[in-house]
């Protein structure tokens, strides 16, 4: 048994951390948040050149051909600086859809561009408020043309290609590859709690759409890919949780009140200890997820839901208490606390809300996978 990353993976993590810090760390997120840009183009290009976008994409499709474990350590570092780049949409989701279900031609058409950061991918699933399920999908494809409205679509404002969930002529939920720069696509950027990762409404009126995977397999494939993406995103959340905890710790050491550092008050100390506990449990669950992702274990669905629930909560917990520890300063726009708070709460909804994943976790544990939980 060995529940740890390899030395090479740790070295990659270090390298990505240095790269992101050299570029300004969290300041990059703030810059995007306060501008009209939908993401940091230079940073994204830099990540592509570093080879991290294509880390888990095979070499034949323009990637680096490392493993998903490598992508996990990259994700954690992106999370630590809450990087304002569409990696989750383009790599954890779009590229993963193509890898899992794409035809050779589809892979060849898009994967090299995604790995090189020349094109950005997105996953268009949602159609309005409420918990997402296959029954809510109304968008449809007829004669190879897509009609319908998807909202919100993460990074839909900047994406070049989308994997869209829609009904086929027979009414079965299926997936389609749609070129968002082609005809019949309209997009509108939405304001959101985390504008450093854009959200958009995509309106399709006869956009050319190409089937991805089998007709009627849409929900099944989407579930599988979202499980994989959930583990990668959990690593981003973990990185964010750790960083928020460190910020709170540093401030607690430096801020004085009543003649002593606030970190010497037990109310603060114990709050920080609890944040550490959340982050540690989440980390352990993420390791379980990473193992399942890399080994393709049958426990993957349970591991994904566990990592997702645990990491979402840890990041939310650390981000909200980070503001609390900072007092009034924590509620200023100038301090970085709100950046983590925004990202924590946005990521907790991406891929489906925490309660949705809690539900899935219990489903998965009670259908034949009880042993995994025990």
């Amino acid at each position, binding site marked *: *048994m*060995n*529940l*740890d*990353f390899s030395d090479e993976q740790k070295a990659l993590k270090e390298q990505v951390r240095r790269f992101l810090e050299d570029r300004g760390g969290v300041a990059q997120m703030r810059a995007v948040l306060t501008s009209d840009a939908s993401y940091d183009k230079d940073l994204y290009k830099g990540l592509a050149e570093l080879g991290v976008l294509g880390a888990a994409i095979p070499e034949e499709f323009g990637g680096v051909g490392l493993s998903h*474990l490598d992508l996990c350590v990259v994700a954690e570092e992106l999370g630590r600086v809450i990087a304002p780049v569409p990696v989750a949409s383009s790599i954890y989701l779009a590229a993963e859809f193509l890898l899992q279900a794409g035809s050779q031609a589809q892979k060849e058409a898009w994967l090299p561009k995604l790995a090189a950061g020349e094109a950005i991918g997105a996953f268009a699933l949602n159609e309005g408020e409420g918990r997402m399920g296959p029954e809510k999908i109304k968008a449809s494809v007829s004669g190879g043309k897509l009609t319908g409205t998807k909202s919100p679509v993460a990074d839909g404002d900047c994406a070049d290609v989308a994997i869209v969930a829609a009904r086929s002529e027979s009414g079965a939920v299926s997936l389609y590859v749609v070129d968002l720069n082609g005809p019949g696509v309209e997009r509108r950027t939405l304001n959101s709690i985390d504008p450093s990762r854009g959200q958009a409404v995509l309106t399709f009126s006869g956009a050319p759409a190409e089937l991805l995977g089998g007709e009627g397999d849409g929900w099944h494939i989407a579930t599988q890919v979202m499980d994989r993406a959930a583990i990668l995103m959990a690593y981003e959340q973990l990185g964010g949780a750790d960083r928020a905890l460190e910020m709170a*710790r540093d401030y*607690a*050491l430096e801020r004085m009140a009543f003649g*002593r*550092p606030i*970190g*010497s008050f*037990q109310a*603060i*100390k*114990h709050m*920080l*200890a*609890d944040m*550490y*506990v959340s982050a*540690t*449990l*989440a*980390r*352990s*669950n993420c*390791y*379980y997820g*990473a*193992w399942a992702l*890399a*080994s393709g274990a049958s426990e993957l669905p349970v591991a994904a*839901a*566990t990592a997702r*629930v*645990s990491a979402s*909560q840890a990041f939310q917990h650390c981000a909200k208490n980070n503001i609390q520890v900072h007092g009034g300063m924590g509620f200023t726009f100038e301090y970085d606390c709100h950046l983590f708070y925004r990202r924590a709460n946005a990521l907790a909804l991406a891929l489906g809300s925490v*309660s949705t*994943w*809690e*539900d899935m*976790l*219990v489903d998965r*544990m*009670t259908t034949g996978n*009880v042993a995994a*939980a*025990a």
Partner: protein
Amino acid sequence: MDFEDTPEEAAFRAEVRSWIDANAPKHLEDQLKRANFGDMGVTSEDPIQACKSWQKKKAEAGWACLHWPKEYGGGNRTPMERVIWNQEEGIFRSLGGLFTIGQGMCGPTVMAWADEETKRRMLPPLASGEEVWCQLFSEPASGSDLAGLRTRAVKADDGSGDWIVNGQKIWTSGAQNSDWGLLIARTDPDVPKHKGLTMFFLSMKSPGVEVRPIKQANGQSSFNEVYFTDVRIPDSQRLGAVGQGWEVSLTTLMNERLSIGSGMSTGFPQLLSLCMDVEVDGKPAVQDSNVRSKLAQFAVREMGLKYTGMRAITALSKGETPGPENSIGKLVAGATMQDLAMFALDLQGQSGVIWEKDGPHDGRFQAILMRSPATRIEGGSDEILRNIIGERVLGLPGDIRVDKDVAFKDIPTSGRKKAAAAA
């Protein structure tokens, strides 16, 4: 990253499995499986003897205290082999409960601080279960604040070099079954409290030692009061230097947190089966959305603990020393068990009140409800563990100390606030 055995580990596992299969007390298996938290469940024979005979059998075959050196009665095995042994021992592991304090805390303290001769004399019978040990640390006026203890050890005035001990310990688990005790006492009240302590071990059969059981909140009596009246301890039974007791005790306490916290289950698998069994609105509880949300919360904690343990084992097998971050095991397990039990009783409805071994779900959740408060106190309370995480893991400043540079005898305590003020 993998959960596979290496070929050597697999061979070791096979060897262990076949030995356990041929030697384990299978006639106790059913009783052990129905054990509840705080109760080993053996009724068909004397449970103490059942524990001792399994331990002896293991020791004779070289399976006792696997990670200890051979010359001290151990098996000289790697941390990973120990983990494999524990997995394979399975349900029979609960027969080791009698020796947890001795082998998990007292033994490592003796190993770290005693001279070679003492180690060779004391450790092998501890490993083989022939001699049981208890931990004589807490006192009525000093639990969390252990260094505030008052039991006095003074040099005998007969020139023998022996120590004479007077005082009282409390909450001593297993004292009634113990042959030896690890005792921390005050040898100098005129210096600040951490500096005037010294560690000893003594025979629990020594004249002047009196053990009185305490009835616990859950109805059992596993801990005791221990009184010392002019108890004589030879100086050769001192561990560490005179005045070094605090340092010695830290070895014990860190091992305590590790052995209480590691591999602790919160009862989640049992909760999950309860939820498939009891109904809410005419449907299995597991289908109810409120129940599902709670279940998921318990699941991620249980699994988080499990994989935190595996990460610690991985670190150990790479030669790293487990540090204060391991405090989270007991901290999470204690509170989670308690919440989980309350939730289980709630699902059982009014029947949740019934606590019978042959009652609903074997009275298992009731036993957890009634024993888990102790988990949050023993071996460092939740609050003390949060202090440890805050201070030693996160590097926050310690509490302001009003007793730090004051001679022990001048420190106000619950019983002598006025006296101190007057002094």
